[in-house]
């Protein structure tokens, strides 16, 4: 299974070295509200989850925000 960093890097086309928990949509041109849908879809597929409506905007905060939402759903993210 890909790490969260690998998944974010692959979906947004950002070098993996740039991906950290502090990375926000403001830091990355490729992370806009539409490409965020691709990211949510990839997370759903990788972790077999169904997100609640409130999760999607919560994850549009930072990579750390995504990690927190996944953790709240009991997903151990490497």
């Amino acid at each position: 299974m890909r790490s969260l960093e690998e998944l974010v890097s692959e979906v947004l086309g950002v070098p993996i070295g740039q991906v950290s928990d502090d990375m926000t949509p403001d830091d990355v041109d490729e992370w806009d509200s539409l490409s965020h849908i691709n990211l949510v879809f990839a997370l759903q597929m990788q972790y077999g989850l169904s997100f609640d409506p409130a999760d999607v905007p919560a994850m549009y905060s930072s990579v750390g925000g995504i990690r927190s939402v996944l953790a709240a759903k009991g997903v151990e993210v490497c």
Partner: protein
Amino acid sequence: MATGILGIGSYLPPRCVRNAELPGVSPAMDEWIVSRVGIRERRICLEDQATSDLAYEAAVDALKQANVDPADIGLIILAASNHDMVMPTTACIVQSKLCAKNSMAMDIRAGCAGFITAAVTGAKFIEDGSARYVLAIGAEVHSKMMDWNDFKSSAFFSDGAGAVVLGQVPQGYGILGSYLMAEGDLADALVVPAGGSRLPASHETVDQGLHNIQHDGKKIWRFATRVFPASVREACQRAGVEVADLDFVVPHQANIRMIEKCMEDLGGLPMTKTHVTVDKYGNSASGTIPITLREAVDMGKIRRDSLVALTAFGAGLTYGATVMRWY
């Protein structure tokens, strides 16, 4: 005499695709698309429909409303991004379908600003006496040049067409002032990389998805929110009217948040002074303005004497606006 719109036509493909029908979209993703972009559903053409088919239907509708015979059209200008073929022009194909035998026909490419570019350009031919009537068409088939597995495109783009018949109207009515501009330095913000002379079609270009539309959403947002209000202001200045005097604004339909922000940036014009169709038709590029204009007129939101601004921005990057007194 002045030049104005004598008839508007539109054509929306019958196939309606709701967000939830896009492969893989969950209810949470659906809600996000609605809240961030404003699109609930979009129209997509049938397998056997091409751009000229949509354009033809819109043109017939416009000619009927204007009560103008195709033989009296002196010029057809068609704006699109995804044409029937690389050659000939889609405008010539539409000319043949319409039997508009006394018409010159040409395509223009200005992305989502294509319809305004076509209409403003076409009006010049009436003003100088080259044509009695001009048919300006905006038509788009995005669905055949995008990756349906990329929500960035599939949730955003749609198909549709609109057309207007331009002709003489009494002085004081019609187009009062227009403004067209391009910023080619931003060309890479919205591209279909392959299929032209730079990167001809090959197995590799197909395998790499380079015939699909690619867009930099943030760059376009920054551009659009700058040029949308600026182009309306410039067109108003050229028309000799104040922005505050506008009765109605018909903007390109890309994103509801963008429309709301730009209306606010135009001195706080209320949303009651515009009409939104992006929620049900999506972004059909050069089709959105005539489609939205037709609906606004049919609903009585635009009437005789209304002071109306049309404004759009698109690939190129291009933008423009035109201000008219509705006849």
